[in-house]
């Protein structure tokens, strides 16, 4: 178990052909990231495709050399160390099992590389196989396994050498939706048991919210926000985080150089919002979607700022009839409002918002 820390990390890729033609094609995949895990933490790197999260993970693993900055694992700078000397274990998106080896040989491989003797190897393999419930599969080849089984074998291979850090690169993305949910649960329980610092890369906010002790949201090579799931969801640092997390995303209404943001689930019929600090707005509904019990209402609000299309999410418990084409009085609690600078997208101080009613 160890703390992983990156300081001022930058990684620049030269585009292959572009190298000869000048600076075109240079990509700042990771553009100055400072990030530290705490002991035994489950840290999730979340961001859209191409935001640099996988590059950051691979740089920590030692598969990429950083252009700038330092990587610390367990109190040592490991920039110069090859992957095998970093005591990290990585699970790849494709699992990268050795196709010509049996499951047993796959799991034993890291132990053999460490030069652990035979009886000890067998013992650890048994332990890892039992922990992940793949005992009966030990003599099979990877191609005889289902996706979920492969994922468990990859985890066992990572686990067996008792690394100081787990690096997981979208390990659930190759599983179908149903399996993904149960595998997510398994992953979390598994990490609770072994208590190893884990860095988990995903573009799936559900995985991030469900798994992470803290979430690091990345965009365009930069760290946008780092915090526990609830904080990242409730108090997004900028409009990117606000709209990337949450489904449907946060509503943003322009008003006098600021963007007023509120989550769809906080825009509710007036009768359900009590208290003095509520803001009542007319909501012109033009479309209703029923999604897993909830109702998503699409429409425009007036009075909060510029007339803007927003989404309201009514929980299944709200049975008030709402039809497309109708206008209803909806309301939001003032303390649910978040304010962002319209130009930079950064969070700003709350401004007073009074509506007509």
């Amino acid at each position, binding site marked *: 178990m160890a703390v992983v820390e990156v300081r001022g990390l930058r990684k620049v890729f030269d585009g292959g052909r572009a190298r000869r033609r000048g600076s075109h094609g240079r990509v700042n995949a990771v553009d100055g990231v400072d990030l530290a895990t705490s002991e035994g933490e489950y840290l999730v790197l979340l961001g859209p495709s191409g935001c640099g999260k996988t590059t950051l993970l691979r740089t920590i693993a030692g598969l990429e050399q950083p252009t700038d900055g330092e990587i610390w694992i367990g109190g040592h700078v490991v920039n110069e160390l090859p992957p095998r000397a970093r005591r990290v*274990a990585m699970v790849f998106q494709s699992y990268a099992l050795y196709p010509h080896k049996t499951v047993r040989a796959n799991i034993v491989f890291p132990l053999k590389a460490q030069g652990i003797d035979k009886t000890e190897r067998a013992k650890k393999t048994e332990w890892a196989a039992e922990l992940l419930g793949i005992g009966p599969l030990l003599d099979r080849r990877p191609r005889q396994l289902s996706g979920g089984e492969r994922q468990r074998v990859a985890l066992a291979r990572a686990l067996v050498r008792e690394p100081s850090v787990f690096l997981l690169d979208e390990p659930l993305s190759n599983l179908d939706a149903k399996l993904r949910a149960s595998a997510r649960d398994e992953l979390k329980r598994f990490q609770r048991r072994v208590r190893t610092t884990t860095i988990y890369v995903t573009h799936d906010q559900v995985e991030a919210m469900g798994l992470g002790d803290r979430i690091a949201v990345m965009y365009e090579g930069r760290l946008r926000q780092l915090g526990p799931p609830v904080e990242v969801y409730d108090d997004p640092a900028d409009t990117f985080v606000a709209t990337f997390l949450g489904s449907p995303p946060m509503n943003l209404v322009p008003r006098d150089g600021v963007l007023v943001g509120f989550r769809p689930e906080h825009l509710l019929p007036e009768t359900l919002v009590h208290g003095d600090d509520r803001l009542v707005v007319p909501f012109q509904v033009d479309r209703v979607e029923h999604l897993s019990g909830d109702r998503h209402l699409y429409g425009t609000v007036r009075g909060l700022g510029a007339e803007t299309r927003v989404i309201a999410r009514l929980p299944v418990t709200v049975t008030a009839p709402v039809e497309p084409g109708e206008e209803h009085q909806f309301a939001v609690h003032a303390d649910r409002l978040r304010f962002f600078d319209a130009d930079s997208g950064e969070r700003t101080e709350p401004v007073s918002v009074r509506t007509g009613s």
Partner: protein
Amino acid sequence: MTDPALYPTHGQSVSPPEVTGVPHASPPVDLRERRRLADRDGLLAWLFLLPSVVYIVALVAIPFFLAIAFSFSDVTAGDPSFDWAGLRNYQNVFDDPVFWQSLRNTIVFTAVSMLLIVVLGKVLANILIADFHGKWLVRFLVLLPWTTPVALSTIAWLWLLDSVFSPIDWVLRELGLIDVNMYWLGKPDLAIGSVIVVHVWRLVPLAAVIMMAGLVAIPKDVQEAASVDGAGFWRRMFEITIPLTMPIIAVAALFGAVLTFTDMAVVYVLTRGGPTNSTQVLASWAFFRGIEGGDVGQGAAIALFLFPLLLAAAIAILRAVRRMDVS
């Protein structure tokens, strides 16, 4: 082109579909008319296969059966009339110690060359897939030996290994490693070594390119997983890379073996089988006997010996490839 008689139907006739109710319906046409030549797979298959079938029949099958026929005849360059000679040619060939020498040489040359070709080809392939400046030039230069005609490049080697003017000897002399010339092609041991070296030099690039294809096909993340798992260069090489590319390596070995086994140009140009038949191989011996010596029957009998050996080797390697379980 609309005359249906031009397009006789094969078996079941295809009637034009009903087009009632469509406003701009064209008059019913035979849909098969819309098939172009490129859509007719059966015909195309024959068209494309024909040249290679003609080629194989004319240049492989006919000579092969001719050779079988000649080996049972008393045909010579001076008397081309075909008379049945039974197994006499084979009898004569087996009684000749040069034949056994050639057979032994062929097997030794092939085995040693194949081993060296695979090992050096593997090393070269690893160098070639590495990313460095000017790799295209290096790849081009490496492939040159393979693209040069064997006879031509062997003549270059003939000069390199010349008894008097050999540049190799000159370098060794200047370095003070030898006092007198080596006579590369004049001493049996050195001549055998020289022939093998030329074979290896000629075939390593081919093997390297074949194995390169195999190396490139290994998923990158499998290699990366191995390095994160703690494997160093050699462990990755022997536990991941080589097992995963084994079928390709076997194919490269097969190519190396077949091309060495059947080649007579290197021996013919370099040593003409000498000194005293110490580098004679089956192919060159068959040529000397059958063409230069004029005894076509014996030449054919010797040459036919290549066939079962080659067949056995090819089958053995291909079966091994199929048994390998790497996917």
